[in-house]
């Protein structure tokens, strides 16, 4: 009698099936994750001196992601944020970004790095081809330089050159009206301080040609004491002072200059003053410091912007920062682009993103645009005003004119050899 093998499931395949079954019972998220949620990776600075800004970036992202998820998610898939600390080190930012995509399976990247780290993450995006939106780097060259251009990267941030044009033209207006011809500058001694101060004085002199810079001070970043800088400026007797000191350095400087009554002796233009991180910390904020808007909930003075600022404060018990609005805007762009593309595919979203205009509380006219040719944010609310020591801190902001910005930006790009 011969035994013939009965047709059906063999022992081997039964074992394999059982194994797979056991796996899916033990690790159900493997199957579910790919179908339902979309992971977005975000390297940002969560420790060290600028941790406050990184945290405020994460907070803003979570505020918006919760809204998107409640409304059905990104093209039907719930967003799962994976936020990692880069400690502000570029090489760490690049490593984290790569790991987020390769190991954690993130399909999109929000790059919450400052300028130094953003270029490193940009290279990772170039290498992996993953869709990446820079949310904190203000360095103009990141998008203005055609060498940096890649189809899958965007910048949803205010830009250094825009700020310089608006600041220069605003300051020139005041300089002409008040006859401020002798200027001093005092900015931190590193790339940002040098570049920003150079661009500001470039446009200041362009709009007010008889302005002369008679004294320059370059204190080092995070210097505890500015007394010698303050007295040096007092000796030079300028009529106006420009500074791009920021954060704790700026508040130290103000406290130390205050007791020399510096603010009564000259007009002060401090581009980074009108940010809640500095405004709420300085105890004796002098009246009448000119500043660019970083983020304040009263500019643009719309109910949407005020409501957003209040909602953020209600959730996190502090006011948003300049980094917050930029990160929130990035999520708004993603949501709108995914809806239009009806997909979470990075390539398809990128195609829609280029040239996309969305409604946004931080737009100069209620909308912001992701410019198509260089993938950078334009149309955001940008302006200068003077401070008062209590809320709303900057009661009136003079809006920058985007037509002028575009003209001068094009000229600047040409002079740099970018176009």
């Amino acid at each position, binding site marked *: 009698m011969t035994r013939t093998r009965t047709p059906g499931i063999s022992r081997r395949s039964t074992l394999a099936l059982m194994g797979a079954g056991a796996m899916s019972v033990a690790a159900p998220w493997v199957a579910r994750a790919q179908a339902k949620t979309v992971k977005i990776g975000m390297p940002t600075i969560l420790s060290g001196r600028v*941790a406050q800004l990184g945290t405020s970036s994460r907070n803003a992202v979570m505020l918006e992601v919760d809204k998107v998820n409640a409304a059905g998610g990104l093209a039907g898939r719930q967003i799962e944020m994976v936020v990692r600390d880069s400690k502000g080190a570029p090489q760490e930012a690049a490593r984290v970004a790569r790991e987020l995509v390769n190991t954690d399976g993130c399909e999109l990247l929000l790059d919450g790095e400052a300028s130094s780290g953003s270029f490193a993450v940009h290279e990772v995006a170039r290498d992996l081809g993953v869709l990446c939106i820079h949310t904190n780097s203000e360095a103009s060259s990141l998008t203005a330089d055609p060498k940096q251009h890649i189809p899958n990267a965007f910048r949803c941030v205010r830009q250094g050159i825009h700020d310089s044009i608006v600041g220069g033209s605003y300051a020139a207006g005041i300089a002409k009206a008040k006859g401020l011809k002798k200027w001093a500058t005092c900015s931190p001694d590193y790339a940002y301080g040098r570049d920003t101060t150079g661009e500001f004085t470039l446009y200041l002199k362009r709009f007010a040609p008889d302005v002369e810079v008679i004294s320059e001070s370059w204190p080092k970043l995070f210097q*505890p004491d500015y007394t*010698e800088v303050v*007295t040096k400026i007092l000796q030079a007797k300028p009529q106006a002072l420009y500074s791009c000191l920021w954060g704790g350095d700026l*508040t130290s400087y103000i406290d130390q200059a205050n*007791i020399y009554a510096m603010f009564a002796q000259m007009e002060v233009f401090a581009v980074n003053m009108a940010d809640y991180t500095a405004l709420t*910390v*300085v*105890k*004796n904020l002098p009246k009448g410091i000119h500043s660019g808007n970083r983020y304040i909930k009263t500019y643009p003075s719309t109910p949407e912007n005020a409501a957003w600022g209040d909602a953020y404060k209600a959730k996190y018990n502090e006011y948003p920062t300049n980094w917050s609005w930029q990160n929130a805007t990035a999520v708004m762009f993603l949501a709108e682009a995914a809806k239009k593309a009806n997909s979470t595919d990075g390539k398809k979203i990128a195609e829609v993103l280029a040239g996309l205009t969305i409604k946004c509380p931080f737009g100069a006219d209620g909308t912001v645009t992701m410019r198509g040719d260089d993938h950078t944010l334009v149309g955001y609310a940008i302006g200068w005003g003077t401070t008062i020591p209590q809320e709303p801190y900057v009661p009136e902001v003079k809006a920058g004119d985007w037509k002028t910005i575009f003209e001068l930006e094009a000229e600047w790009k040409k002079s740099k050899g970018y176009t």
Partner: protein
Amino acid sequence: MDLDALTGCLTSSACLVTQTTSGLIIGMLLFLVAVGLTLIFGVLKIVNFSHGAFYMFGAYFAMTTYHLTESFALAMLAGAAGTAILGLIFERVFMSRVYGADVLMQLLVCYAFVLIFDDVVRLIWGPEFKSMGMPAAFQVMPLFIAGGVVPPYYLLLIGVALVAAIVLGIGLSRSRIGKVIRAAAHNPGMVSALGINTGLIYGGVFALGGMLAGLAGALAAPVRSLTPGMGFSVLIESFIVTVIGGMGSIVGALVGALLIGLIRSFGSLGFPLFTEGLMYLFMVIVLVSKPTGLFGKEAA
């Protein structure tokens, strides 16, 4: 280099007054930190790398007390007393265990506490920078002396530091405790054999050093922003001061600190891009010509 500005300043009384007081302010705060460092080294033979933390705690203690009580005097007291207690605990619990140990071991323990103290501040007060605010009494127009600008708060600051320097100098050279401390620095074994509790002296000296750094932090709090890690840059400059003045010498710390202050204030006029460099250059010159520092032989 801008030598015209420097010579212009040296011939103008207004500029001379402003820059000299500016140098004194920087120097006196530095002295308070550096003298603690040098005192601890002189008696305990330990390079207290974590000394900057006491400056930081002094500032935070003062800020919190000021915000709670609105009293500037209490704030200064809290800054000084709080760090004195902290110094005593730190010395008795941790530092006293590594006295005989390798220098590297002592350095590692101190460095560990630099990181730990920074994180403690971050946990209690948060990572963001803070500001204490100038007391209303000092929010007045600066004084004009011979055309130079001198803020009243800085006069107080220089005065307090000067009093501390004098009390410390006289106390160590004349009082009985001062003599015991100097004896302990010289020959701890003999002092111990005479029935004096050297542990108590060590703890006391450490507390005194911490208190002076804390006082410096408290005095600086109204004009400097407070962040975790703020002690570090002050510590580096204090090391320069002690190296210039001579490790273990109080007079050296005073002279070194004032020299650094004046180099900064006048250097920023004549050599705006090399002010930091001037400090180090001066240190190198002193080290080469007199390796023990200007007052190195006078052990405290």
